[in-house]
């Protein structure tokens, strides 16, 4: 069966990667600020927890072990941001939550300076033009606090000339009301920054693409999007739609 590259499991890509004209315009403003600060527009960093602190998250796009199948049009994103996919960085920590981002306690002491939090540290080390932000799973029980801290993270990222890409999550760790994803969507809209709404895709997957712990995503080591299994696993579609988000960013900033 032929795959329509404008759709993922029946969901339009435009619903999964939300970059409106307003968002695109704001991205160009942030990008221009970043260029003035000397940011590397072809590098992205990752800020998140154990869901992406894994070699199964996007690293294969740098190693060449993949087949995009019907999504071959995403290759430019792989070329443009080459080197960032495989890079782990210092802003990934198992258990990380929004409160911990600016707490120096969470920073890697082998790489970061005294009193330097992991986000400042990552920016200093990698100088990225784009930041993928995947937080919320470990922010249970305090929606106002999550909202407050995520807004601080996004504000800080923008002030530093870095385009934040906000990512929704597949799990319901904080409860069935999905409050953290709703907060993330609102923040993306309020700040006019890209939203990668993976939560929508997870809804099409068996078990929402989650393993038995109901938090981490099921793996897809083949990274071959000509295989039907690619569209039934959490990480298979997480990686694919993440690439779509980066391609959307590339198209805006490289014009």
């Amino acid at each position: 069966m032929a795959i329509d590259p404008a759709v993922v499991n029946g969901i339009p890509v435009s619903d999964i990667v939300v970059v409106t004209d307003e968002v695109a315009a704001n991205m160009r403003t942030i990008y221009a600020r970043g260029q003035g600060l000397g940011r590397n527009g072809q590098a992205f960093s990752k800020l998140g927890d154990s869901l992406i602190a894994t070699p199964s998250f996007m690293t294969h796009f740098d190693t060449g072990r993949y087949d995009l199948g019907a999504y071959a049009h995403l290759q430019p994103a792989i070329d443009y941001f080459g080197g960032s996919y495989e890079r782990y960085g210092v802003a990934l920590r198992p258990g990380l939550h929004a409160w911990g981002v600016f707490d120096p306690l969470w920073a890697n002491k082998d790489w970061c300076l005294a009193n330097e939090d992991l986000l400042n540290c990552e920016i200093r080390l990698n100088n990225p033009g784009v930041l993928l932000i995947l937080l919320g799973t470990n922010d249970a029980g305090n929606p106002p606090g999550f909202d407050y801290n995520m807004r601080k993270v996004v504000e800080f990222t923008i002030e530093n000339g870095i385009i934040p890409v906000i990512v929704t999550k597949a799990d319901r760790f904080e409860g069935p009301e999905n409050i953290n994803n709703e907060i993330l969507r609102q923040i993306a809209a309020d700040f006019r920054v890209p939203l990668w709404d993976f939560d929508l895709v997870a809804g099409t997957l068996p078990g929402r693409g989650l393993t038995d712990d109901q938090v981490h995503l099921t793996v897809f080591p083949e990274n071959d999007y000509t295989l039907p299994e690619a569209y039934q696993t959490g990480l298979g579609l997480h990686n694919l739609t993440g690439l779509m988000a980066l391609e959307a960013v590339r198209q805006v900033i490289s014009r």
Partner: protein
Amino acid sequence: MKRLLLLLIGLLFITACSGSGNDPATAVKDYLSAKVAGDTDQIRALLCSEMESVLERETRTFDSVTGVEIEDMSCSQEGDSPVVRCEGQIVALYGAEETHFPLVSYRVIEEDGQWKWCGEAP
């Protein structure tokens, strides 16, 4: 005997009138223990005034954790400097994963007769 008694009284007097109610290393250890416990009152009492704005962050750092412990903590002031060097680590359990936070050197400041924790030291 009288001299011994006077000596003891003198020592007690000196101790009672010393500038701080605690010593720097104890302040840091107590602070880290409070942070691990999420003890807002104790954190507030031991956090220096210039860091008051991050009180909530300091209190919530270990939210959503099933078990947090400090292992092998030992702290000592570096000479007469406002720096306390600690060894050991905080271990937190997130689901099935352990995350380790090594203890480092911390800055202390004396405020209102108490030594207080004031962030990491270079």
